[in-house]
């Protein structure tokens, strides 16, 4: 019985239980009310986050709290322009976060390059490289705008519409192709996205493709770790 259940993808597994949607909605409500955000200070927008979190605007009354490690974070805030060197770290950080995970792009620079649309060093559009749930435009957005954006994200999570993290698994080949175009064909991270996609039952025909084949060619078969005493 258990074995059969494991073969059913997560999406369809819910329907087997008549009360599943009640639990799902309750879980989504709880999730939306306790967001641990990892703010990667990629640019100027980071300077408006301390006012959001501290005494005056007090983001913690909404259940939003900063988190220092990607392994325990729910929301990745990308605050401002991402240079190519930073984007590699942003992608690695994003891939380390456990699902469900949400991305908020703050500042105009993450939307379309903003003030640095001409720059040779920055990536212009964040959603080319990773799925983004909410964009907060402005240069830089006021703390009220950031809080309003976070409330929109909470509403999206509560109604179950914030599922961009599934896009990353479903269209991994597309995102990897964009990353390879920017970083070169030998780009790789130590994460195993296809394995995770299998785990969540989110493999589609777009998950694997020419770009993942290129990745497998270049990905080093790594030796197992040896403990040194």
């Amino acid at each position: 019985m258990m074995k059969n259940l494991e073969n059913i993808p997560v999406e369809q597994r819910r329907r087997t239980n008549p009360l599943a949607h009640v639990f799902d909605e309750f879980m989504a409500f709880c999730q939306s009310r306790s967001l641990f955000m990892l703010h990667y200070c990629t640019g100027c927008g980071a300077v408006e986050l301390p006012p959001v979190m501290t005494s005056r605007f007090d983001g913690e009354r909404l259940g939003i709290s900063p988190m220092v490690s990607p392994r325990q974070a729910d929301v990745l805030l990308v605050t401002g322009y991402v240079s190519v060197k930073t984007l590699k770290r942003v992608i690695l950080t994003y891939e380390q976060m456990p699902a469900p995970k949400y991305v908020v792009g703050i500042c105009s620079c993450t939307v379309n390059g903003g003030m640095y649309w001409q720059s040779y060093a920055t990536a212009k559009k964040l959603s080319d490289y990773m799925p983004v749930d909410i964009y907060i435009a402005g240069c830089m957005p006021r703390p009220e705008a950031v809080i309003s954006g976070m409330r929109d994200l909470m509403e999206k999570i509560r109604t179950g519409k914030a599922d961009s993290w599934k896009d990353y698994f479903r269209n991994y080949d597309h995102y990897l192709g964009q990353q390879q175009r920017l970083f070169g064909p030998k780009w790789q991270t130590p994460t195993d996205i296809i394995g995770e996609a299998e785990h969540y039952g989110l493999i589609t025909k777009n998950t694997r493709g020419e770009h993942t084949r290129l990745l497998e060619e270049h990905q080093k078969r790594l030796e197992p770790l040896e403990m040194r005493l």
Partner: protein
Amino acid sequence: MRPENYEAKRQPPSNEFELNFGPNHPGIEGNYAFRVKVSGDIVLEGKADAGYLHRGFEKLMENRLWIQNIAITPRICVPDPVPMEVIYCLSVEDLCGQEVPARAQWLRVLQMEMSRFAAYLFYFGGLGSTNGMYTPHYWGMADRDLILDLFEELCGGRVYHIYNIPGGVRRDIPDGWLERVSSTFDYLESRLKDYDDLVFRNQVFIRRTRGIGVLNQQEALELGVTGPNLRACGLPFDVRRDDPYLVYDQLDFDLPTEDAGDNLARALVRRADLFEILRIIRQVIKALPDIDGPIRAPIPNPLAWNVPAGETYQRVESSKGELAWYVVSDGGDKPYRAHVRGPSQTHAVQVLEHLAKGARLEDIAQIMFSLDACPPEVDR
């Protein structure tokens, strides 16, 4: 992420380990990385890893009109943006041989000192956090917001103001704004006693910071340290006094110094600076109503503005240290070359690497915050 995907590095057995601070780390300011080699908790060597915030400013400026560049200059240093605008305007004015009306000069001084005060409050918050004291961070941010509100009333922007323009400032101050500035800074002065009790007279802070990150005067001069960090080594040098620009020669202020050159001295110099900033702001508020006249000298059509050929080197004192710009014009409508000499590059790369040697691992974040470097300005 799976552990088997990590590459195991075979290395000879040793007591030395490498550790990465940053780029995304709570103990580092902004998007900046610092790699240290430690043995136990003693740092043997540190290596700065900058470039995460590089946008290519100097190239971007060559592709924009003289007037368009005002919008991107404040983005170079985020916590203290006003000196960047002012120095760009000073450079263009110097190339054009333009005279700035007196009222605009006083308004620029007022802006720069307000921005300096806000940047110092930001600094105290960061320095407190690295010592495990989070209250200064909360208080500093709330008090800094009062200054940002004044800026918002003045020009509509909280953080980036774009209030200066070559030839003067964009518009005159709103009615009653000076009284509000005055009352806000009266309130901030009354808060300083609380900051003293919380941080600067707090034994936890004093014992934690005294004797850490010591930089003597000779080393500081060799490394090119400027600004409050140099004054913390006992050398009273300040561009505002020693090479006055705008109307600083008509203002009366002192340069507080400390002799120790350690983290505590760097914090105390900035703490003493707040009083001098308050003195300058009060003098400006007193003098400004009597200075009438235009706020802006006439400039040609900004979209077809050919600045005469020439080169200029201008410097001002920002809250981080000496900030200088070298601007070259070939007589066209865009700068031929613009170069920024930022104080943070020296402080965050050379000085930090120098101070990290022999420091303890838990002090690295504190040393970095006490130097008050601004990562966007390092990379530009």
